């Protein structure tokens, strides 16, 4: 199961990277979203999969799944949401201001 998920993660990261390297702003945002999904899966995999019951106390079970990756991912999901929202609005704003979403046309290297 872990190997399967890791391969899935690899594929997702490849696709995300490809999208990030493209020229359109929207595709870059899509790419970063895919990468964040992949990373979340990677973190949960690193703790070992299906090793016990959900990390809820009070139920008479022998072992729990690792709770730390879950806590990390919970944070990551929320931060990802914030980042995605900000970047999306940034894209919107830069398109409004510059009239293009092509990264090659948006590039700038102005010296002081």
């Amino acid at each position, binding site marked *: *199961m872990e*190997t399967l*998920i*890791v391969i*899935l*993660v690899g594929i*997702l*990261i*490849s*696709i995300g*990277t*490809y*999208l990030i*390297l*493209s*020229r359109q702003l*929207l595709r870059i945002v*899509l790419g970063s*979203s*895919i990468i964040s*999904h*992949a990373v*979340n899966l*990677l973190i*949960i*995999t*690193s703790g*070992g*999969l*299906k*090793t016990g*019951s*959900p990390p809820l*106390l*009070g139920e008479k079970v022998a072992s*729990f*799944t690792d*709770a*730390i990756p*879950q806590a990390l991912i*919970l*944070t990551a*999901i*929320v931060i990802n949401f914030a980042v*995605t*929202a*900000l970047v999306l*609005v940034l894209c*919107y*704003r830069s*398109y409004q*201001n510059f*009239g293009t*979403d092509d*990264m*090659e046309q*948006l*590039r*700038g*290297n102005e010296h002081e």
Partner: protein
Amino acid sequence: MITFYIFIFLPFLFAFLVPFLYKYLNRQVHTGWFVLFVPLSIFIYLVEYIPAVASGATFEYTLSWIPSFGIDITSYMDGLSLLFGLLITGVGSLVIIYSIYYMSKVREALHNFYIYLLMFMGAMLGLVFSDHLLVLYGFWELTSVSSFLLIAYWYERKGSRQGALKALLITVLGGFGMLAGFIMLIMMGDTFSIREIIANMDAIQGHALFIPALLCILLGAFTKSAQFPFGIWLPDAMEAPTPVSSYLHSATMVKAGIYLVARMTPIFGGSAVWFWLVAGIGLVTLLYGSLTALRQTDLKALLAYSTISQLGLIMSLLGIGSLAVYFGPGETGTVFTVATFAAVFHLFNHSTFKGSLFMVVGIIDHETGRRDIRYLGGLMQVMPITFTIALIGGFSMAGLPPFNGFLSKEMFFAAVNDVSHAGIFGLNKIGMLFPIIAWVASIFTFVYCMIFIFKTFGGAYRPERLTREVHEAPLGMLISPIILGLLVILIFFFPNVLGEYILIPALTAILPGMPISGHDVKISAWHGLNTELIMTIGVVVIGLLLFRTARRWIQVMRNYPQGLTLNHFYNQGLSGMEKRSASLTDRYMTGSLRHYLIYIFSFFVLLLMSSLLLLHGIQIDFSNNAAISIYEVGLVIAMIIAAFTVLLASNRILAIVSLSVLGYMVSMFFVIFRAPDLALTQMVVETVTTVLFLLCFYHLPKMTKKIERIPFKLTNLVISVAVGLTVTLLALSANGHKLFEPITSFFENAYELAGAKNIVNAILVDFRGFDTMLEISVLTIAGLGVYILVHQRVKRRGQREIK
């Protein structure tokens, strides 16, 4: 103890008051009058220490600062630091009185000026009273920074800005060298304290780092004290207001290098490298400065080069005096102790006469509007008092009696004569160079002093060349140079009072191992007709001859090609470096986000792959894998399909919907992986994100794919596959290794520790509550950013908004 620290830090504390004093009271009272209180009170406080220090006592105070790193502000007062403390506050008081009349209270930004000046004063006091090497270094750099600010005080002038930058670049470069030297010293002596290092000399002498530390520390001292070839910043620093030049760039800051060399003499003195570098560079600087001063037409530039030259003189005396450490107590040692004494004596004298001369130049500049000797002349008639002060200062610098410069110059001649037959360190071969260079440089010194005095004040008075009507300076402006001039004469007649109370304690601090009696270092004006006196007479005779014929040869010197000056090399080097680094940076900083991402991804792949391969980290272990059910395989395949749809979709809606499909399937995996909280959160967030995407996409252009060419796509493909492969390999290897036991078992006591039954929740809100709080602030910041971006006023298209 606390009083001591209050006095030392008084300049910093008082600086906080200056803006208010300037704002509310400057109209009635010049801000300088309030600031004067600071150096004056510290001066009086320090004067009270003189009798105790003169009788051999030292004072030590410790203020704990960063105890965990062993950094305390250990203050230490001995004769040397007291001498500098008195100079800093004494000259400081006079300079502030002078500045009150020099700096217009209407036109100038006085609050800036006095804050910088106080900052400098505090830094300088901290420097000389600090025993902790790193604290000393901090104050050292602070003096460079405040000097930078003061040179650039008239920042609207180009020359000021350039001069300030030059001074900062050179002195801070030296400062870094010094820091490196200090660190080596700390490593060798295993302590931060200068005195403990001196007490533990056996561990340092013969250590492999001894010479590197020596060189690095000397770099700092030489750049600060404008020694050859680093002295080029000092003439450019003359762009500063004259009170600053007279305070920082002649009396105090440039002597910090001297202070450092004197402080380090017990550690490094006695080694041949130290002797040759300090004495040799000092002599070269003496000659270079005096020779270059002759060419100058700007009075301040002339004084700047003369300062360089005089600093070289003091430096070479310290170098010669360091032989006392080599010889140790005894007759020969005592001879060189006298050289060190001469260094301290001349240091004091130089502060008096050079300070007054700078103030004279400030007066001339202020009253005539000119500093160029080609326009000046005959000022003797209109400014008799200024002329008298210039005469006293100038003759003292030339080494004539009855002024203090004569005494220290004689002692300098005695020292170079003594060293020429010291017979060690190869001196028996080229030792004769010492008196010769010293003598020649003294002739040049004499000539430029005469030029300074008589080209300005002598000759015919030609008011038509000056821009304003000239009259004597106001009394307030004359007070400080008069006091300094009086000191010049008084020291000549009563040198041993100064010697006994201030100079001998300083000498004891520089050469702690030497028994010093007042008899050995008695200063007297008349020794009979000895070599030194004959040398002085020679200087005067040849100097007068040269001065009389100056018109013929000085023009030749002024024609010295600009292309061969040190300044030229500095400018070429600086602009060359700027150009080269700009072209190098332009080559990779293309402004394209994609290129930067390519750099990042390539480094990611290269670093991780090479370390995985080199360290044999690839180790794949399938044995611990959990079982796979058909249902999960289906999910994986669906996810891959969804991801590829996002990649290949040419329709925005399709891409966004596929992305949310992907997200929901991730939340299903969370369910399978026994993570109910994650599944719920992911579900909610995914829904909101999709809504956000749909809201935004309406405003974004359609997807196009035609713009991307084949090589472009190929690069992307190679990099993305490589990244994916690296991550896969890394994750598989990570699963294959179990280096540590998991720490989760700690959190499984969540109910006892935090009263929570949901472990994930307990981690977030209790164990790592702070992280969660910061996470919420990140959300808040992002929310604010979104709000501002949405509500920002839309400007017309084509108008650049972000600049």
